């Protein structure tokens, strides 16, 4: 095994201080596989090291919240024995590199977060931010992202019932693709990720593992494999057909009494899923990596632990339920393997054909993940625009200019590429204030919206954060729904810059204030930082996804004027 040089450490995105901590925790030099595990567990993406402190300040409780942040998705009670499970997640960088597959796998990932918890996904949303329409890359990116979202969502058969789309030059080099899924489950049949039961089998189900998306580590791993460049595509290809089968198979297994804990393999794949399950359960885990279903020849433990191959799940089963589970996954033509078991050692032990190739303490690693209190400066330009600074334009001209502007123009061309009616319960299609799906077999409905106005957040992070939450609230009430809870997707630039960190902190403060006032808790979310190219950050974009409940669909409101002589009222301030 190669020696760990400072270069290799740096290539794994760990600072010298962080590496010191690694040495402390391990009590020895880690091998490459172990280093790779530290690297992904402590990445910004998995550890939320810059954002954790502030996310904790968001209100997450209400009598109807069954499960707030910390699980795969948030869960709220929607009455009559049902729960809504939902979350929003970004796939910004991959979508910039390969718009179709990046956006498609983003949809796949968020769907898995939701059905992992036992819900059947019933609606998808997408919040998109692109660069200037005249920028040479924009057209290609828009076309690819929209096709990718449609390609995946249409195939799995979950309706995409709304979203938002903005254009601004600050996104020229960093587009935002935020996807949201809402699912419905029986409130007393929610599945969580905490492992339990020493000796219980750990099983793998879904697609085989390939060398997809093993990033950060490309250079380092080249040392033990010359041909690595060709072999390591950093872009994952989505397989929505397999995802559809995985949904059906998981829901079928969930209807039995076999699962103790379940977690999808998302970013950082097998590493983070097994770590999280064991850590939450306060247990250890032993994995026989050679039993992982593999798509390619010659895969190493390092690659297996870090692969981001899509459409995979990890489960802890009750003892003796392996055959039942295997039969279900085989019926749906999916791979299935028992790859390990739980232990009481508090350690993760990785074996390769019987040899131990990794041995790490779970809690110290998970708990000690760095947490930063980054300096911040909240810049609030409350001054606003004064009316005497505006040159007046005759209103017909102003109106036609507004209607023609890319941010206001109709989005029909987007949502017509999404199947927004499959599942036969879409009672409000895209084009209104919120999308609405009927709760199957009832006369109740779930309303869903996503909202954010980045330029408000840029000029005043606190007010902008408030406004995003308030707009989501209004869009739900506008269709006649009672707002329940939100998920968020915090997209910002480099948090190491105080002003950017200030945008993040300010937005959190504003959101928190609005959420408390409106009794509108945050039950799940996602953070995407470092959205910068050549020092140019994106506009701060805390995208809010929200759901509400309509108790009687006959009272649902839509935006269309209905009849001649109807009275038009304007109210509010």
């Amino acid at each position, binding site marked *: 095994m190669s020696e760990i040089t400072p270069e290799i450490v740096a290539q794994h995105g760990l600072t010298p201080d962080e590496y010191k901590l690694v040495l402390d925790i391990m009590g020895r030099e880690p091998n490459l596989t172990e280093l790779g595990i530290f690297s992904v567990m402590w990445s910004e993406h998995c550890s939320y090291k810059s954002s954790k402190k502030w996310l904790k300040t968001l209100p997450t409780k209400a009598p109807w919240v069954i499960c707030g942040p910390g699980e795969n998705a948030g869960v709220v009670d929607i009455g009559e024995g049902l729960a809504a499970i939902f979350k929003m997640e970004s796939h910004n960088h991959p979508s910039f590199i*390969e718009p179709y597959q990046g956006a498609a796998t983003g949809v796949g990932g968020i769907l898995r977060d939701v059905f992992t918890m036992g819900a059947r996904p019933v609606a998808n949303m997408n919040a998109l931010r692109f660069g200037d329409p005249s920028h040479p890359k924009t057209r290609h990116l828009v076309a690819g992202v929209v096709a990718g979202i449609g390609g995946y969502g249409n195939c799995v058969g979950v309706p995409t019932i709304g979203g938002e789309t903005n254009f601004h030059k600050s996104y020229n080099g960093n587009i935002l693709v935020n996807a949201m899924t809402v699912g419905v489950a029986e409130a007393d049949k929610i599945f969580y990720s905490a492992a339990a039961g020493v000796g219980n089998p750990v099983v793998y189900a879904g697609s085989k593992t390939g*060398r997809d998306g093993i990033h950060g580590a490309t250079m380092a791993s080249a040392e033990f494999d010359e041909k690595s460049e*060709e072999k390591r595509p950093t872009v994952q290809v989505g397989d929505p057909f397999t995802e559809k089968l995985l949904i059906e198979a998981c829901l079928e297994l969930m209807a039995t009494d076999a699962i103790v804990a379940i977690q999808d393999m998302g970013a950082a794949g097998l590493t983070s899923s097994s770590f999280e399950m064991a850590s939450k359960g306060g247990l250890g885990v032993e994995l026989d990596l050679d039993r992982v279903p593999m798509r390619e020849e010659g895969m190493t433990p390092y690659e297996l632990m870090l692969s981001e191959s899509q459409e995979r799940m990890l489960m802890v089963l009750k003892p003796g339920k392996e055959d039942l589970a295997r039969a279900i996954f085989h019926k749906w033509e999916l791979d299935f393997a028992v790859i390990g078991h739980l232990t009481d050692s508090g350690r993760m032990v990785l074996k390769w054909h019987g040899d131990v190739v990794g041995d790490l303490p779970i809690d110290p690693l998970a708990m000690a993940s760095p947490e930063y209190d980054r300096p911040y400066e909240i810049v609030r330009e409350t001054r606003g625009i004064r009316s005497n600074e505006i040159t007046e334009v005759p209103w017909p001209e102003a109106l036609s200019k507004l209607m023609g502007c890319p941010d206001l123009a109709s989005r029909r061309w987007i949502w017509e590429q999404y199947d927004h009616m499959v599942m036969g319960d879409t009672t409000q299609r895209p084009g209104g204030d919120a999308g609405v799906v009927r709760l199957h077999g009832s006369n109740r409905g779930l309303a869903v919206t996503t909202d954010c106005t980045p330029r408000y957040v840029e000029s005043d992070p606190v007010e902008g954060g408030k406004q995003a939450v308030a707009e989501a609230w209004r869009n739900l009430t506008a269709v006649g729904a009672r707002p329940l809870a939100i998920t968020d997707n915090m997209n910002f630039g480099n948090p190491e810059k105080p002003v950017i960190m200030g945008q993040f902190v300010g937005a959190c403060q504003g959101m928190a204030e609005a959420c408390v006032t409106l009794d509108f808790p945050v039950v799940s979310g996602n953070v995407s930082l470092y959205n910068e190219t050549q020092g140019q950050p994106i506009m701060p974009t805390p995208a809010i996804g929200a759901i509400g409940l309509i108790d009687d669909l006959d009272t649902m409101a839509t935006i269309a004027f209905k009849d001649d002589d109807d009275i038009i009222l304007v109210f509010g301030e």
Partner: protein
Amino acid sequence: MKAKVHVTLKPGVLDPQGKAVSHALQSLGFEGVQEVRQGKYIELDLDETDPAKAREAVERMCRELLANTVIENFTVDLEG
């Protein structure tokens, strides 16, 4: 002249289509098919008659439109 372009997924990139086809062949009773990979085949009729220029143009078309070089490789054959 005519250009024949093959666009194939890079080795290691998941090929859901190939996978599904190989499943389907098995269930149709075809034995002994190890792996299936599916790609695109594109024929272009060109006005250009100079092979070097034609190749250069088509390779540019591949890079800019016909292939997605992040995940795909391409080859160009000229004829006539």
